[in-house]
């Protein structure tokens, strides 16, 4: 999908990926000053205060959860998975955009990615951190989570490898590792820049240690480029594989509404959909707030909106096929599942989800005017994220609440601790993200310099 983007009329219309007039120095100054010289703004403190408060609510929730048990949530039999799994899938999905931008688009030589990849990667990492919490916390006995990891224990017991949850452990831990490495490796040259520019002693030491002795020699650059490319090569399959495995958590089960072959591609598309929405949610205020409109230009927003449109269409196709197959298959359980989704007690959630994920984005993103309007895009990105969260809610809860035995049908009522965990995890994410933009360059300095050079060359 990356291929076609450059040739679209809008992109061809000529909005640059870097505003004209930037030199190496202006780029470096502009980006590093946010970290090194500018005073921490009141807006940052305000945002951090709220995020940190939410993060503390998460900690409280975890405390309560560990003391009392998962019974503090609204889960029951038959709805044994609730918000925790919804949140897990949602956060993991959000992470996907970062990997797609940094690895996949890198391999595709999409140079417009360079101003957004850094914070998109950071977003991935923090989203994976939030996602990783939930499968652990949702366990009945979370302190025994390591039983899901294959290790040679004295009892000779191993995980049960047929279970998708074990696959999840591999998928998510690999994903977290690669994302961290990729992000950190990408940071090294910039850390060296910060080390060199920092005035405070502590900053120099910390950035110095993190820069791992980067001197920017040609040898460094050569090896670096190769390592980065290899990591990108490693990370690219993860864009597809992680959410495929996550979708297996559902498809391998026999629950109507879960047991569907369309899930892997539909999950991946959904993940990228929500992930790009999150990138937009973060990028639009950031560029405004830190005056980075030169680096994250309308062209970027436009491109990302197009990806939203494309993935959104795949997701819509998924919804359509799910409904179609339920009737086409003649399977009574599937048919009832779809009817119950659309008309049952959670029908409202389903229709809000359709509005959020299909009606609103699909009716707006076709128009270049809207794609190039940051305020509109910001609103749409929030709508899409809410929609994607609801989609997971519909998959997890609506499917479970009425499955096979009518006698066991029940409703799910989230408790205050369900909401606390959801909003608390958003707090954790934002806390980490705010710390990131305060202490690390949110846009890759060296890649932007490369881009400036590249554009010069093109022109020249």
């Amino acid at each position, binding site marked *: 999908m990356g291929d076609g983007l450059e040739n679209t009329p809008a992109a061809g219309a000529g909005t640059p990926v870097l505003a004209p007039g930037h030199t190496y120095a202006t780029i470096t100054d502009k980006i590093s000053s946010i970290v090194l010289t500018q005073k921490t703004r009141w807006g940052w403190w305000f945002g951090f205060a709220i995020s940190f408060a939410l993060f503390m609510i998460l900690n409280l929730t975890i405390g309560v959860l560990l003391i*009392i*048990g*998962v*019974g*503090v949530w*609204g*889960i*029951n*039999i*038959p*709805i*044994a*998975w609730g918000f925790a799994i919804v949140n897990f899938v949602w956060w993991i999905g959000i992470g996907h955009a970062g990997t797609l931008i940094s690895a996949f688009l890198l391999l595709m030589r999409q140079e417009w990615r360079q101003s957004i990849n850094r914070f998109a990667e950071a977003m991935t990492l923090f989203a994976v951190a939030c996602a990783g919490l939930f499968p652990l916390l*949702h*366990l*009945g*006995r*979370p302190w*025994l*989570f390591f*039983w*899901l990891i294959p290790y040679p224990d004295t009892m000779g*017991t*191993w*995980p*049960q490898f*047929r*279970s*998708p*949850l*074990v696959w999840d*452990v591999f998928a998510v831990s690999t994903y977290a590792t690669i994302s961290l490495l990729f992000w950190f490796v990408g940071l090294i040259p910039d850390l060296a820049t910060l080390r060199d520019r920092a005035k405070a002693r502590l900053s120099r030491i910390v950035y110095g240690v993190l820069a791992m002795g980067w001197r920017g020699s040609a040898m460094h650059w050569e090896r670096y480029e190769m390592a980065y490319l290899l990591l990108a090569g490693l990370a690219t399959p993860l864009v597809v594989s992680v959410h495929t495995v996550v979708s297996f*958590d559902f498809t*391998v*089960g*026999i*629950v109507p509404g879960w047991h569907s072959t369309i899930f892997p591609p539909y999950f991946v598309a959904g993940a990228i959909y929500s992930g790009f929405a999150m990138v937009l949610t973060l990028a639009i205020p950031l560029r405004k707030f830190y005056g980075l409109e030169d680096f994250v230009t309308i062209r970027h927003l436009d491109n990302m909106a197009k990806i939203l449109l494309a993935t959104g269409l795949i997701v819509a196709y998924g919804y359509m096929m799910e409904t179609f197959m339920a009737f086409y298959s003649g399977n*009574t*359980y599937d048919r*009832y599942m779809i*009817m*119950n989704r659309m*008309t*049952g007690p959670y029908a409202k959630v389903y229709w809000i989800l359709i509005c959020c994920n299909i009606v609103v984005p699909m009716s707006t993103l076709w128009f270049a005017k809207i794609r190039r309007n940051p305020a509109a895009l910001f609103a749409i990105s929030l709508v899409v994220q809410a929609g994607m969260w609801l989609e997971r809610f519909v998959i997890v809860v609506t499917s*479970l609440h*009425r*499955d*096979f*035995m*009518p*006698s*066991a*049908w*029940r409703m799910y*009522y989230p408790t205050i601790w369900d909401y606390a965990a959801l909003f608390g995890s958003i707090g954790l994410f934002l806390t980490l993200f705010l710390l990131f933009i305060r202490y690390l360059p949110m846009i890759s300095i060296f890649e932007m310099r490369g881009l400036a050079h590249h554009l010069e060359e093109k022109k020249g």
Partner: protein
Amino acid sequence: MSTQPKPGETLDLVQIQTKLERSPQKRVWRGLEELAGTPEYRDFVECEFPHDPRAEAKGVNRRDALKLMGASAALAGLTACTKLPTEKIVPYAQQQPEDFVPGHPLFYATAMPLGGYASGLLVESHMGRPTKVEGNPSHPASLGTANIFAQASVLNLYDPDRAQVVVYRGRIGDWSTFLTSMDQLTAEIMARKGEGFRILTGTVTSPCLADQLRSLLALYPQAKWHQYESAGRDMVREGAKLAFGEYVNAVYHFDRAEVIVALDADFLFVGPGAVRYAHDFSDKRRVTGPDSTMNRLYAVESTPTITGAMADHRLPLRAGEVEAFARALADGLGAKSAGNGIAAPAGVPAGWLAALVGDLNKHRGACLVIAGEHQPPIVHALAHAMNDALGNVGQTIHYTEPVEANPVNEMASLQELVADMQAGRVNTLLMLGVNPVYTAPADLRFGQHLRSVGTRIHLSQYEDETAELCHWHLPEAHFLETWGDVRAYDGTTSIIQPLIAPLYDGKSAHEILAVMARQPGATAHEIVKQYWQRQNPGADFDLFWETSLNDGVVANSTLAAKSVKLSAGLAGETAKPASQSAGTLEIVLRPDPSIGDGSFTNNGWLQELPKPFTKLTWDNAALVSPMTAQKLGVYNGNIVKLSAYGQSVEAPIWIAPGQADDSLTLHLGYGRSRAGHVGNGVGFNAYLLSTSENRWIGNAEVQKTGKTYNLVSTQHHHIMGKEGEEREEDTVAAMQRKLVRTATLEEFRKNPDFAREKDYEIYGPTLYENYSYTGNAWAMSIDLNSCIGCNACLIACQSENNIAVVGKDEVSRGREMHWIRVDAYFEGDLENPAVYNQPVPCMHCETAPCEYVCPVGATVHSPEGLNEMVYNRCVGTRYCSNNCPYKVRRFNFELFSDWTTQSLMLQRNPDVTVRSRGVMEKCSYCIQRINRVKIAAEEAGRVIQDGEIVTACQQTCPTQAIVFGNINDMNSRVTKLKKQSRNYGFLTDLSTRPRTTYLAKLRNPNPEIKE
């Protein structure tokens, strides 16, 4: 808790010293605290926690809860080293060696008095702790099975809320003071020749207790003995008296009846013979093939009951109209009584009555008409007259002398007592095992008049509403703690032998009566044994005694048939038309199907037991028909105010399909203030609407209050529509799953394979190799044609498998823990739907969806086909539950098992893990029972016999609907049942290959009645 005496009090060291010296063996002790495991010490401990009944009545605050927990823990600790009673008890030798092997349970036969009548039991005892109750195969009222009350009685034994101390005027007293005080009191009574001395008991069938009472009355000639059983059988007794001019007891033989008419009679569940009747009834319906026959049951009833659900024809009729129906039926049958030409009530469909009369006449001598326990005497008398006219006497019914030691009209007896209390003619009232302040009809104002009695002495297992108003409260020994005797529905007598010494020094009624007879110190054992020695003075008494204890029944004690003659006066009884004043609705009071009349209110198992059909837990409700609800403009959970006879209660509405229109059913046993921590404040008190005139059926004004209440049901309801009818989407979906497969007997004969039609099972290629079962392959068959939905299996499972009680709040969240549940589905119209009960344990699928999704291998497949849970390995992902299509898995969302209450630990089955927080659990096919038999068989080097392994649910099932066994054994019962054409599995199209399968339900309707 300090054990130091408070200033001003002294620890009686001299007494402790004496105790020490008297102790038979040399005693090793660590301190005075330990030594003082004496009643005196307990009294002292109790002094630290003075009871204030008024404070407790307001509910329990944190401090009180802690105090009570502390006190019960301390007391349980003092008695934790349980010991068998010192008196010799005799194990049930039919199925076990008599010697004691550590780790192996022993079974003892005993009997439980319930409403005065015996349920014959075998009680499992682990190292001196009774843990599980089962039916006694040698007992005619049990035949080896037991109902929910018997199953749950073991929890009452260990209930930490039981009365634990002698209370005198709201303070801790002690037994010796009581004895001293009684010495004085009885001397006074003696001087007055017993004037003003009254004894109130429940219905007494115990020969020994009756003997004691008679001699007490001989000692105090002016004293009086009153009987009042809260859910007593006055109507039955008075009905017989009306019919025959004397009290007689009717024993029914459902095993000989082809056609049965139940006139508001829930004979399968209510009454002293219910367990046996359910057994006999279902035996007459057991279908093995197309040539089998079934009996036919007609039920006319006001509220959906277990019996009504089994009926081939059910007619909802207001309870007050049943009399008119009975008269019309009697007329139709030409019974001697004559119905005075009264027409059948308007609700009876045309031709129904004629068809019924025809069917009965066709089966003269092989049919039965039975009247409900709560119907007025005339209905009973009419039923007797009809049975007489149909030539059933001596065939399907026989009469005996009454089972009760002294049958009386208990309501009259109670009224007399109250009148005397009111007139100041009672100065000493001894109440044995009754709670009249709560259970007496409201118009008698028992509590108010009780206050005018000079000395009020109360013996009961709980410090209940009556105890609060008494001077002396004595803790009553549980039937598993003491000796006694009791008679069953047919007069068969059992000697109650204890399995454990009283946990809290409880006393039995025998001992209290001995005290009142100025023979203090006589133990229940002595009293009971001496009584029976007097009855059997021969030299072989020891043999008689041991045999009686061993068997659980006294040989030849069953009452002989007696010939009776219908009294002529019956014809003169004029018809009383069902009266109903405008603006009121009929109210029908019934003992609760879960907690009875209130004697089991504090039993968590029974409180959490989903009631038949409504599946309500932890509450009672005013049951109304859908039409009446519409008329009243109320829905489930709306609170209405019911006013009758100057009393009013607020009750939440529950719509019960099948309820008669314009009739409300209210269940008794709830709304208690002093039941204990479990039962206090649960539900509303329906006794407030009963009067001595209208004890079971009355009228009440109904007002909406606009308030709502959260009633918790474990199952949503789905009325299954007939094809072509417009129904709710869900209903259609439920129907398509073909969980309920049913036919009439006729249809079945024409098409024996109806249950398997359109059934497909995929045995396609599989990624994983199929298991091969070379040894045993355990499986279960549940005959839905036999299952009556009585819930006995559920409580048996809870008792056997240490299943936690979670409370109303958790049930409302959908977290009840029952390993087996009884699903109910309705079919047909709302006014009178057919009801299908389906017990659902784990299916133990051969290709179990739960197994492959567990990431840690905590649920695994056994070589014998069991789907096993490894609690230790479970981390609680709950994926297995999501993937279980039958939703039989239960999760410990929190720490649901009680790990702190000492006394409850004694009840636990030591062969079953008590689950902790965060692990999944489910039905294991009673793997502990399987393994016990397997080990025994292996030790003996023999193969396991069919029927040797009996699961807890199967064991207690009164209708023997559940059969467990080995399907690799071609001759096993379960294999044969599964070969029947009615056999089908749930959701087999999912290719789960369930090991638990069902036999389809059949009905045997009268072809002359078109519905």
